[in-house]
């Protein structure tokens, strides 16, 4: 990733975070999470980590086996 791409990504991130504050409040679509600023940014970040950590630990616990696990014949 070069500097230009990081800049673009940073701009997009900033825009998506700031975009939240200029939103018109729509009472029809108010869920509890709409009150938390940058909720979906955290959700994306934490969710991503959660999925990786959860799956990897399951794998380590008992799900991952060597390639020829089923073909001992």
């Amino acid at each position: 990733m070069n500097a230009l791409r990081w800049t673009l990504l940073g701009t997009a991130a900033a825009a998506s975070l700031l975009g939240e504050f200029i939103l018109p409040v729509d009472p029809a679509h108010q869920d509890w999470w709409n009150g938390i600023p940058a909720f979906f940014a955290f959700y994306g970040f934490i969710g991503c980590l959660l999925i990786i950590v959860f799956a990897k630990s399951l794998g380590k616990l008992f799900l991952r086996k060597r390639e020829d696990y089923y073909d001992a014949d």
Partner: protein
Amino acid sequence: MPIDVAIPPALILLAGALLLPLLPRGFRSPFSLIVPVCALAVVWLAPEGAEVTADLMDYRLVVFKVDRLSRVFGVIFALITVIGGLFAYHVREAAKQAAALLYAAGALGVTFAGDYITLFVFWELMSLPSTYLIWARGTRESEKAGMRYLMFHVFGGGLLFAGILMHVSEARSLLVEPLAAGHSFSSWLILAGVCLNAAVVPLHAWLADAYPKATVTGAVFMSALTTKTAVYVLLRIFPGWEILITLGVLMALYGVVFAVLANDIREILAYHIISQVGYMVTGAGIGTEMAINGASAHAFSHILYKALLFMGAGAVLHTTGKSKLTQLGGLGKKQPLVFWLYMVGAFSISGFPLFNGFVSKSMVIAAAGAAHHQTVMLLLLLASVGTFLHTGLKLPYGTWFGEDRGLFPKAPPRNMILAMAAAAFFCTLHGVLPGLLYDMLPYKVHFAPYTLPHLVETSQILIFTFVAFWIYRAKVAGEAGITLDVDWFYRRPAKWAQRLFLEDLETAFNKVETLGMNIAGKLSRLSKNPMLIFSGSGEKYFSPDKHRPAIHTLIVLALLSFVLISLWGL
């Protein structure tokens, strides 16, 4: 103007599949394109409400019935068969081409079936050709996986058939109509049979087991047809069954968790079929007009982008012979076109704005919100984080970037690229002009995807998923090995079953056989000379001169008998 005569598109594909092997080699590929194009035209033009009936014994079969729900599924099944046919244009084996057409005939037959017998016949028609598309890969692995796939689907077909028989005897009607939620055993059996094909957890293991082992071109058809036909049947017969909401959310999350562990690129995609079908199953479970619309739209989008992704992964496998992340890497500069076309599919499945996943996935999530299932909404959003993580980041990063493994891919056939471009075109078309997709849906759409809150929400999720991936990208790299799934429960005991029922049983039979032969041998020797009982050893054959018992023995025996008879007479 709609045509007057309604022709079941499944019959066109069936006829095509039967004719194809008779044609000269050079004509087969164009023919395998023209046939689904005709089927697509027939589906497109079929007037709503058209019906074709046939009488079978005492039953009136509705072999072809068109409404808005069946038409939207029919259109996408026929369209993907055209695109898949283009992707497989270079394939010269008649059996593979005919199998693909037969498979699509099954899917279209189920879609337009108005009665349970027609539905079941076409349902079963799908399982054999799709099994062939796995076997046709020709490896020992695919042979075994194909057999497991077939056994599983035969089992599912059995559940469905048992359910149908019971239902018909209870309801006295063959017609395919929505079943009331959860009171009769027959509807649960039908549900189980359909759920097996929809890869609903825990009946899903066949999918992730078989799809990565199918042929490059066959997997494209498989990714599109089997599960989505089952989704259609769920929408048709089981709308509003609440258990489907739970199962659907479970599938959506299960798929993304297992995709973390997968190493084979087509296995990652296969687990994401389970995850994406989860959204549709949830939609069926919610059962409102908006949810049915959302599930149908998502099935339509999903078939296009998932076929595109399978074509991309297939192109990598076709050109390098490798499909494992641990063997791939650094192909980006060597096949940029394949990479970018794949990325269109990846952007679509991840729900990027301007791609079709954005306009369909959000409809399912919004339908969950409208039905006050807030937890379902959040969990489906979490699943979409995982989708982007694997299909959009881990897989392309590991395949086209990452460590360069010194692979030199050959150029893919031009038809492969064309087919990918066609799928990419539709993925983008519906993303930019969602109205084209929404106009086909079963009910009138009251949903606008491009609103500011939705854009902000989506971009926050996607951008920060990317950030998390970038920080921890080393953690998600592929690792050699396999992942256990619920297939363990029938693959592992298979060894023990083989030992118990084949090896041990054979040993036991052998022992009994040897014992029997020994006894027979001894008896035959004895029968030649019964005197051996007394002497233990001696001549092999009885000789009256040597072995005749002495006369006094006979007299004693005669007297003894006489005494016994007299005593009895007293």
